[in-house]
């Protein structure tokens, strides 16, 4: 039998917004609204299934983690050791801090029950009776809405003991971060949750063997868990009918920068940048020179037809030398000095370096950021670009966690594609493009 035609475009009439359907609607965060729109049916269904069935369903759906790394969620769930009576945890990573990413925030604020339901299903699947939502400290409204949602869910029996008479107990701990991007890294998140400084931990042991408090743990992104609700509701086939071979399902893409209608758009995976930028977001507001495809750490690509027509899935973007990441697209206008834009991001990573390892602490936070500052101030010297390149070589792949490499994404790609601007700035002491006021009335 011929495989069904994949949905890879939002223009396909079979595609329907699911995860993002209720965001922005008044009172969408309340339990009554959620129940009125089919809420907790997936959980009810899931709790009649065997945990292994759920895991298989999620595996079959082809869902890959939406937190950035894209690891198959079902496979990750199956790494949990056999149940042995120890407490197990399912942690939701709601620390979303990668510049250009803001999809999780709207789920947290406007559709918290969707997340709680996903967490409940995931918890049941991996045998964890405790869920943790680690939400970044700045998301205060999200925290309030979640808090209320958890209270409502407890009251209504969607959290607590013997949920849906299934004998399964599940409850959720809400934990707020306090402003540190590194807490998004899963092992740093566990340290932070445990009340320690949020340095990443050694792996192995992986969270499934020794996670929070040394107990078996699985960590998933907010939208990974939200996707699970719809996979259970609509079936793995529905999910895998969307997307491409290596990237199934629908995903929340984000777009920001100089574009008419920035925001979050739900699309089948594999839709092109062009569709996102022009068809959905209304096109750029000014001339664009670069696309950051998936959050600030993903190498930027030139804004041209080749890249605009690249499908936004894991494999295709990788062939262009970048990554899908969180799917947070940033459009950099031609008028923006690329060195300045890169400096902005280098500064971000320097600020967020945890300080544990040498190449990141000294290489990026101690040195790289200073070179960039020197460049943007117009004091660049001949040899600086080569120095940056050499440093990048000496940092890449050598740091303890991926944060240092994340910083090199914009650094190396901007030099690769816009070396001329660097050279111009160094030679002339002022940038090639010098638009200075970006603020609208």
């Amino acid at each position, binding site marked *: 039998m011929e495989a069904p035609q994949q949905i890879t475009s939002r223009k396909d009439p079979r595609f329907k917004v699911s995860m993002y359907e209720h965001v922005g609607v008044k009172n969408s965060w309340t339990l009554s609204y959620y129940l009125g729109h089919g809420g907790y049916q997936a959980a009810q269904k899931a709790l009649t299934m065997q945990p292994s069935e759920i895991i298989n369903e999620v595996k079959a759906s082809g869902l890959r983690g939406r937190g950035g790394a894209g690891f198959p969620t079902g496979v990750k769930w199956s790494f949990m050791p056999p149940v042995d009576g120890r407490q197990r945890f399912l942690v939701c990573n709601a620390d979303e801090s990668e510049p250009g990413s803001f999809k999780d925030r709207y789920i947290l604020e406007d559709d918290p029950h969707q997340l709680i339901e996903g967490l409940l299903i995931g918890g049941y699947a991996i045998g964890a009776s405790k869920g943790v939502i680690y939400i970044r400290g700045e998301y205060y409204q999200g925290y309030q809405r979640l808090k209320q949602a958890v209270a409502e869910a407890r009251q209504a029996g969607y959290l607590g003991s013997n949920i849906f008479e299934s004998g399964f107990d599940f409850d959720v701990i809400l934990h707020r971060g306090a402003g*540190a991007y590194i807490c998004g890294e899963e092992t740093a998140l566990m340290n932070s949750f445990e009340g*320690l*400084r949020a340095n990443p*931990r*050694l792996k192995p042991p992986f969270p499934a063997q020794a996670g929070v408090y*040394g107990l078996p743990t699985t960590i998933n992104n907010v939208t990974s868990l939200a996707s699970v609700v719809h996979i259970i509701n609509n079936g793995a086939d529905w999910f895998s009918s969307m997307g491409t071979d290596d990237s199934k399902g629908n995903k929340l893409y984000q777009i920001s920068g100089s574009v008419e209608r920035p925001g979050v758009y739900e699309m089948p995976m594999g839709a092109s940048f062009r569709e996102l930028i022009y068809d959905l977001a209304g096109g750029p507001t000014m001339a664009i020179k670069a696309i950051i495809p998936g959050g600030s750490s993903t190498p930027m690509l030139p804004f041209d037809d080749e890249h605009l027509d690249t499908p936004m899935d894991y494999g295709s973007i990788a062939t262009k030398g970048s990554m899908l990441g969180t799917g947070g697209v940033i459009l950099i206008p031609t008028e923006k000095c690329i060195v300045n834009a890169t400096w902005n991001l280098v500064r971000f990573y*320097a*600020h*967020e*370096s*945890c*300080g*544990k*390892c*040498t*190449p990141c*602490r*000294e*290489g990026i*936070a*101690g*040195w790289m950021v*200073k070179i960039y500052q*020197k460049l943007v101030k117009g004091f660049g010297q001949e040899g600086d670009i080569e*120095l940056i390149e050499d*440093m990048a*070589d*000496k*940092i890449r*792949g*050598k*740091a*303890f966690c991926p944060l240092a490499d994340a910083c090199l994404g914009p650094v190396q790609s901007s030099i690769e594609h816009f070396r001329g601007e660097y050279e111009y700035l160094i030679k002339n002491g002022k940038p090639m493009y010098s638009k200075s006021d970006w603020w609208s009335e």
Partner: protein
Amino acid sequence: MKVKVNDAELELKAGTSAIDAIFAAGYDVPYFCSQEYMSPIGACRMCLAKIGAPRKDRDSGEWIIDEQTGEPKIFFFPNLMASCTTAIMEGMVIDTLSKEVKDAQNGMIEFTLVNHPLDCPTCDKGGACELQDRAYEYGAGQSRFVFDKRHQEKHHALSELITLDRERCIHCKRCVRYFEEIPGDEVLDFIERGVHSYIGTLEDGLPSNFTGNITDFCPVGALLDSTSRFRGRNWEYDHTRSSCLDCAVGCAITIDARTGRIERIKAARNTQVNNDWICDGGRFGHEYVDADERLKTPLIRRDGKLTPSTWEEAAAFINDKLADLGAKETGIILRADATLEEGVAAKALAAQLETGQLDHFPRLAASVIPQGVRATLNDVATSDAILVLGDVSEEAPIVDLRIKEALKGVTPPELMPHGVPLADLRLKERMPRQREILTVASPYRCDLMKHAGSTLTYPAGTEVELLASLLQAANGEGEISEEAAMRLGSSPEQLNDLLKRLSGAKNPVIIYGAFVLAASEASNAVQALAKAVGAKLLAIGPMANSYGLEALAVLPSHARYSVQEMLRGSAKALIVSGLDVAKDAEAAKALKELELLVVHDSFANATTELAHVVLPAKTAYEKEGTVVNLEGRYLPLKPAPVENGQSEDFCGLVKFLGETMGTRLEGRSVRSARRLLKKRLQLDLSELSEEGYLSPAKAKAASKFKLKESYELEGNLLLTPSMIRHEQLSRNAHLHAVYGDAALRLNPADAVAQDLNDGDVVAFELQGIERQAVIKRSEAVPVGLMLLPALPEQPAALLWLEPTKLIKAAVAEVLA
């Protein structure tokens, strides 16, 4: 497992780290964050290597073969790997020589130096600095960093004893990990984040008794021993490896001396005893040695005044007196940290003088050599059930650390060709501790209790009762009753649990010190209990060579010749080495009656005041010799080049005396003493290894224990052993600044009742000895009990002191 490091193939145990494989193969790789005995964390990224391994085909289970070579194909990791946190795999290939690795090392050195001040010319660590060495070996020789370096505090006093230069710190985290992993006091941490982070503490002066160790292993000059800062460069010091004599453990130390002074003491490694650690008492307790008032020449009392003289004259003077006297009346008292060789000399002298009045002091009621199966310190560290009776953290501080090692549940590492593994992958940051294996029982709340699964504060003096109850239950001779347990501050459940734990364990150990040794019944009981539950025993003697001197029988020929008796008139002449026996007013009276009082000591004191002859003595740091530590391990002492005038050890004293007597006494020199000991022990002490020699345990059967009805130890003041040697504190300015004067600790309720406030100075008389102490209120002390540090002349004991006899100093001065 077979691994290949560059061109060397070797076979190593699974679980070995790649960095240890590299060193085992004889290659080098730079590292900063790795540190022996601590968890590998892979933070400095200095030890990167190119690592690969063969893979098995998933379906067939066969090695995937490289077509070209016909050998298993090596799959290299996509990135260089930190070798300290990578475990070896079968067939692993590790490359440390390729250009890729060199470039990475080069880069990492450059990064490490970005914010390092490079103030080597003014840095104490210069010449002994890991960063300096590594930068020289692996760096590019110049930096391309043109910006201002990070400016931070350069002279931050973490405590009176330790100075931190925050600019020099390279964030290896050794010190932070050390506090969590070794003593378990998390008093130091990183503050701030990223490139702004620095080491700091909010605790007042790093409250831990093991702070100095961080200055030993700090790879740069960021953490320095304040007492020796700016005193010399590493290459200017004479390094002498010796043993510490401050307690019965006998830790390995390195004495760094320069121009005749001891500038600092560092921990040396003894994998059997102290690993790499020493306590602050041992590290900083040497300052007195160089005090100006040190006795350096023999003195003879002429016309009531002590006048300088020579050893020959002094010996002749003594000899004359002894001849008049009839030597049998002479008593000889050694301090219990005298060496074995000195013990031999003292015995030879006693034999020559035909006297049975020979003893060492302090010596408690019970033998320090346990009857039963002796535990080693490594037994402690691998034990799965430990009962501690008393306050070991003060009494023998390193035992405290070895107990904490056991709580991690990881056995001491096996040695590699290059020594202790650099990265023991079984160790983890913030490991869970098996507190439940540890029970601590003491008459007051002591530090170690914080780490114990079960704790018990029994009324002072009830050791025998406690042990007897346990023994009874262990022998099935009767349940522990509710009241009995209550009286002991415990419950039947707790005591039964303890018994179950001990008897169910594979390697149970019972550790006890002065409070048990103070009564032979208690000591018998503990030995019987150990036998009943199959536990090994570790007894902490009062001083560094208590074990050795007892084994050598530096003991009176009869009970009526004990030190106490000698000081009450049994002797007519007395030779006292290292003890200020005249502190005791009663003894002083008797001493005044003596025909001859010879005092062998390093400083003038109340006893030298009364002496006819004063002979300058070497301190522990200047002696050659041997001591036997609490496990029965023979440990070597080596003399550091200290300017000590004509000071001699007891062997020297015996040499001069013997010469005037016209005889060559055994023990007239360390060599001669060792010749004798070689015959007796079948052991050449001049060839002791650095680890020392563990004497074979002669497991003697425990003597029968029967609880006497009338047995009672009573008192309201407990003299407690302490890490700090209070008798020298007045000459140890730095330690004194941290630990202050000896404190009389009592419960706040009692303090209120007596109208005593923290910091009040009180004077009182305790069994004839005038003592002064500072009041310290402490919840750790039960109501009705007072604690006071013991002295060599006044060892641990339970005494009565009428609280109303505590006179506040101001008042005391007025009265005086």
